[in-house]
Structures are given as structure tokens and as C-alpha cells.
């Protein structure tokens, strides 16, 4: 968490511009990476596979994996469909495609994509597409988030869920250590039926095309892996439609990185644009506040003035009224007094003087008014 903001912005700026395999990514352009020129590949001819499980056996040995529950010579294992797991980097499955025909056998392992989804998804770059063609995994940096497993369209990487402190992601390595030593992958070497061929990807593609051309009635006219998910280094030829044996034909030809390039590309836009937009909104609301405050102040002042004026007017009129009332009362009293006087004078003519107390008239409710305003 101790990263500077600047560094962070640098990273997100760089996001989407460098790819996991250490070369320029073409995700945002219309160029496509078609693999390292000298990269190796394996061609699996499903029509030739006899389901002997010798490749599984070899893979287990060369990778020092724990011995399986049932021995590799036990072919009844093929009855249930299996997938790769933490201690099995490759599996052979069988499928009865039609009633009485003999079943089809097919091998499954990491396809060593040209632009691997796992590598694009890993946030520590634990996966790399090497120039040998193999996609390798570095367990010394892996955090164990398992996003690579979510990402892989072929459902290959497995995880050591049973390890408490040192779980790894595992998958076929294309026998990377053996390739470095100039040896063949274990499974290819062990295959007795030549269902697996190792070579340069371009050569194998040519070989596959050649087989289809020679035996059009035997093969489905499709080399699986030539374009799937941007192309893979494990190629397949088959005598039955691929989707009938569970190989997905709906993956498309775009490499995985392209699927997320748009979202990553939006990052610099958000970082660049948001402060401006939000700043604008802030400025507007600030200004609105200011204007509102000014208007309010003005309105308050005006209202006060008006109220004062009204109060003044009312006060004067009240006073006038009071004055008038007072006048009237005095007049009345005087009148009364005069009348009384006159009456008394008339009645008695004696010199008895009547003085009348003149009350002050009530002076309106000034107090309550001033307190309400």
C-alpha cells in the first residue's frame, strides 16, 4: 500500500500498452501476434489416438507427480470423463460418438496459447509465453488468486487446494525443462501411435493441412488451435466434429487480451477526464452556492427593509389612530364634561364643578409585533 500516487498513475497509464509476454501488445490495433517464428508446437491427431494412456504415464514420470490412484494401464479409468487437476497435467478421454462405431480418444492438456489468457490475467506476471512455445509458470511470485483459472478458456490450470501454505497453480509445461535440454516432451516421446507430433508450429500446420488434403473423407476440415483464441501451440486434427468431443467451437479467434483491452484502455481516460468533469461540476455547484448565498442575502435584506417599512407604516398609522382616538376621547370627555356641566348648571345653577379623569387610550400591541418580525 506504500506506493506513490505518481507511480500508480504511471502503472495504470502503462496498462494495456505492454503485454504479459514482454513484447508490444497489439491489442488496440488490428495487428495480431502469430507466434514466435521458431516456436515449437505439438499436433495431436485424434484419429490416430488409441487411448492407451502411455502419455499420461510419461507425463506423470517426467514431472515427478505423485502416483495415481489407479495404474496408468487400467483403461477402465477412461469410462468417466476427467479433466486436468493439480497432480495430473494431461488426461485422455474417450467419447462414443455414434452407437456402434469404436470410441474416439483424445488427449487434453495446456494448449500453450500464442497470447495466453492466463498470462494476460495474472497480476504478477507469473505466466510467460516463452520463445520455445511453452507457457511457463513461476511459482515464486504467484499469490494464488486463481484469476488465471477463471481466465483460461480451455479450463486447464488447476490448483493445490489441499496445501495450506504453499499452494501452486499447476499445468502442463510443454516439458519446458526437457525442451531446453533438446529433448522431446515426455508425452510425445511415449506415444506409440504417432498421435502426437512435435515440431515448428508452421511445419505442423502444413502437415495437418496435408493430411486433410490427402484424406478428406477421414478428417474434419479444421485444424483446431490454428485460430482459436488467437491461436495455440497445441494443434488438433480430428475425424469427428470437435464440438462432439467437448472441444468448444464458440471461442472465437480473438486472443484473450483483446477482450479486456478496451476496459484497460479506459483507465487513462477516466484518470484524465474525471477530474476535469468533476472539477467542472464542483465549480458550477460552488458558483451556484455563491449566487444562491448572494441572492439569499439580498432577499433577506430586501425582506427586512420591506418589513421595516411596513412596520414603520403600521406604527405611524397606529400612532395616528391612537392620536385620533385620544383626540376623540378627549373631545368626548370634554363634550361629556361640558354636557354634564351644562346639565348641572342647568339643574342646579349652584357652583359645583365636576372634573373628569381622562384615561389614556390603549396604545396597540407594539411589543408582540416587533418580536415576530
Amino acid at each position, binding site marked *: 500500500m506504500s506506493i506513490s500516487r505518481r507511480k500508480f498513475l504511471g502503472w495504470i497509464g502503462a496498462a494495456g500498452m505492454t503485454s504479459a509476454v514482454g513484447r508490444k501488445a497489439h491489442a488496440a490495433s488490428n495487428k495480431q501476434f502469430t507466434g514466435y517464428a521458431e516456436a515449437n508446437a505439438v499436433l495431436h491427431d485424434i484419429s490416430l489416438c488409441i487411448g492407451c494412456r502411455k502419455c499420461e504415464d510419461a507425463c506423470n514420470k517426467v514431472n515427478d507427480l505423485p502416483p495415481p490412484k489407479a495404474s496408468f494401464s487400467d483403461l477402465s479409468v477412461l469410462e468417466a470423463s476427467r479433466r486436468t487437476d493439480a497432480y495430473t497435467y494431461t488426461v485422455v478421454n474417450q467419447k462414443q460418438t455414434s452407437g456402434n462405431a469404436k470410441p474416439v480418444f483424445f488427449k487434453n492438456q495446456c494448449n500453450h496459447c500464442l497470447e495466453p489468457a492466463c498470462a494476460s490475467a495474472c497480476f504478477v*506476471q507469473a505466466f510467460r509465453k516463452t520463445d520455445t512455445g511453452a507457457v511457463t509458470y513461476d511459482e515464486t511470485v504467484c499469490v494464488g488468486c486463481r484469476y488465471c483459472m477463471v481466465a483460461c478458456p480451455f479450463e486447464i490450470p488447476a490448483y493445490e487446494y489441499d496445501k495450506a501454505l504453499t499452494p501452486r497453480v499447476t499445468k502442463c509445461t510443454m516439458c519446458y525443462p526437457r525442451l531446453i535440454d533438446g529433448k522431446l516432451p515426455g508425452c510425445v516421446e511415449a506415444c506409440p501411435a504417432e498421435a502426437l507430433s512435435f515440431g515448428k508450429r508452421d511445419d505442423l500446420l502444413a502437415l495437418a493441412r496435408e493430411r486433410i488434403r490427402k484424406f478428406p473423407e477421414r478428417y474434419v476440415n479444421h485444424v483446431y488451435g490454428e485460430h482459436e483464441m488467437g491461436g495455440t501451440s497445441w494443434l488438433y486434427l480430428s475425424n469427428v466434429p470437435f464440438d462432439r468431443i467437448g472441444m468448444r467451437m464458440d471461442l472465437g479467434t480473438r486472443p484473450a487480451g483483446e477482450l479486456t483491452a478496451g476496459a484497460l484502455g479506459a483507465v487513462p481516460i477516466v484518470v484524465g477526464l474525471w477530474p476535469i468533469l468533476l472539477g467542472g461540476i464542483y465549480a458550477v455547484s460552488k458558483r451556484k452556492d455563491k449566487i444562491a448565498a448572494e441572492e439569499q442575502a439580498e432577499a433577506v435584506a430586501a425582506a427586512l427593509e420591506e418589513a421595516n417599512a411596513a412596520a414603520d407604516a403600521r406604527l405611524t398609522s397606529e400612532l395616528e389612530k391612537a392620536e385620533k382616538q385620544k383626540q376623540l376621547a378627549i373631545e368626548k370627555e370634554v363634550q361629556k364634561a361640558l354636557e354634564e356641566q351644562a346639565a348641572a348648571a342647568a339643574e342646579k345653577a349652584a357652583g359645583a364643578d365636576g372634573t373628569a379623569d381622562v384615561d389614556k387610550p390603549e396604545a396597540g400591541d407594539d411589543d408582540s409585533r416587533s418580536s415576530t418580525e
Partner: protein
Amino acid sequence: MSDHTAETGKSVFTLFNLVAGIIVVMGLILTFLRFTGGLSTVTNLSDYNPWGIWIGFDLLTGVALAAGGYVTSAAVYIFGMKKYHSAVRPAVLTGFLGYALVVLALNYDVGRPWRLPYPFIMQQGTTSLLFEVAACVALYLSVLFLEYSPAALEWLGLKRARNLAIKLTMALTFFGVILSTLHQSSLGALYLIAPSKLHPLWYSTYLPVYFFVSSIIAGISMVLFESTLSHRYFKDKMSRTYLDEHNPVTLGFGKAASYVLAGYFIIKIIGISVDNNWHLLGTGYGVWFLVELLGFVALPCFLYAVGVREKNLLLIRCTAVWTVLGVVLNRLNVSLIAFNYHLPSTERYVPHWMEVGITLFIVTLGVLAFRFIVTRMPIFYEHPDYEDAH
């Protein structure tokens, strides 16, 4: 009257303490099992299902529901809706705790949690959306911590530090909104890489937009929901301002939620049209999709609008709960229910009870921390020394 509320409040908390205590003890035991036996002892995760509820619920839903922090502070400080000011602190606190718990949950989920800083210090996998999520969540957690810090500093009586933290408010709000936009959307974008695994009705190139917009909905609804709960249990802690502003805040947020839900509904429809997935609505998944879209998007949109028009606060609050459930449902759909839809049912994931147990444990820790803080620090009221200081 107030005595009475305090009384009931107390008895609720005693029962609550008991339940919380049991959950915490269970959580500690499960934690021990997780870190001694590995993920396979406590989870039903498999090679086909590498992500379970700790990602689908704790991470995806947790982050969405913690959006109240950025939504509220943006509304008040950037959009200038000052009258909602009293809602900021509770929302920021909920956000901060929410993110802290998300990070805690990740420590259970990843294989080697002590390597969580590796993406930053070892090799930067910048092509990964998870990298973006990790970077933004880490930074945003720090931002939320700073945004929340004035309350703690006021409580501790550290005036100078508190005033310094307050000065940062605007900068933090801006930064928080940018980071939230980025990681809320990239949580959805995580699934862009797996079009072959996520059902087409949920998979869309608009996933990041959906996640971002629905996080606003979740944020608003959570502020409403959480304020209703707090109202009930922490009323004695609330200031007059908070209580006076509570109803206008409820109405205002309800209105906003209704608008955003309407927008969300429209972009969802656009998504189906762009991918031309109408025909899928007739399938089982289609019906389930319609339940989510009509029942948990269109319906609350309508109910919020009615609630605001009739000033029916109860309806708005109930709708908030419903909407929160809708967002939970959406995140679970994307991460678990519609994910791996192509696999046979025997290979599908159903959480182990111990996974649920740990999630419950983590949520309980959050509630306890929330209670600890609001009963001590100036969250629902302003510290007497700083009133009118904003």
C-alpha cells in the same frame, strides 16, 4: 420515551452480543482450519470453480455495497448537496469498514496472502484487470481511512491533525471518486476475459459500465438502509441536525436511486439488444435474468418513485433493502450462478457451510467495529468543539 428506547436497545444488544460472540469464536476456529488445512478443508472450490462466495459475495458484493462512501461524499462535496452533509460520516465509515473487510476476506481466499503486495513490489501485471482492482482497492482503502480520520482525531482530541485532515477533504473526495469509478467498473471487467464461461445474458462488453452504475445504486441504497438501522439502534447518539436532515436525505436519496435505476434498466436493455440476446429470455436462465431485471431493477425503480412522490419514508426504506438484495443477486449471478453455466450440475459450485461461516464472521467483525466506533466517535453528531466548522 427515550428511556424506553435505551432499554430496548440494551436488551437487543445483549442478545446480539451473545450471537456475535458465538460467531466470532466459530470464525476463529474456521480461520485456524483454513490456515492449517488449506482451502480444500473449508471450501468447496474446485479446478472448475476457482472463485466462490469469498470473491462473489465478500469481494464483489462487499465493494459494491461499500460504495455509499464515495457516492455520498461526491454528492455533498462535489455536487454541492450540502443538505446531506450529516450523511457523509456514517457513509464514509461504512465504506471504510467495508473495504477493510474486503481486504480481510481476500486474505482467506488467496493462496499465499503475505504475497498480496507482490503485484506492486515484484512484477506488475498491468495487462490484468485484477491488477487495476488491487491497486485501486489498496489506494482507496487509504483514502477512506483518511476521510474517516477526522472523526477519530476529534475523539482523540488531536485538533491540529484533525484540522489538517479536514483540509484534505476535497482532494480525497476527488481521488476517491476516480478510484471508485475505476475499480467498481473493473470488478465487472474481470469477467470480460471469460466470455465462454459466463452466460451471454450476463456477459456483455458493458459489464464494467453495469458494475459502475449499479455500484451507485448500491451505494445510495446502502446509505438509506444503514441509516434506517442506525436510527433504530443508535438514535441516542444522533444530533438534532442528523435527525432533522434524516427525512430530506431519505427523500433525496430515494429520488436519486430511482433515476439511476431507470438509467441502469435502460442500459441493460441496450446490452441485450446490442448482443441480440432476446431469444435467450425464453430459457431457464432467461427467466432468472428477468427476475433480476424486472424484480430487482424495474420494481425498485418504480417503488422509489412512488415513495418519493407520496413522501412515504417507510416505502423508501423497504425499497432500499430490496435494492440492496438486488445488487447482491446481480453480483452472485455474474460470479457464481450464471458463471460456468455450461458445466453439468455435478461440476457446479455450491458453497461449503464453512465458507459461509467465515463470511458471516467477517461481516460480524464489521458490525462490531461499526458499533464500537459510532458509540464513541462523532459520527452521527458533530463534535461540540467543531460544530459549524465545515
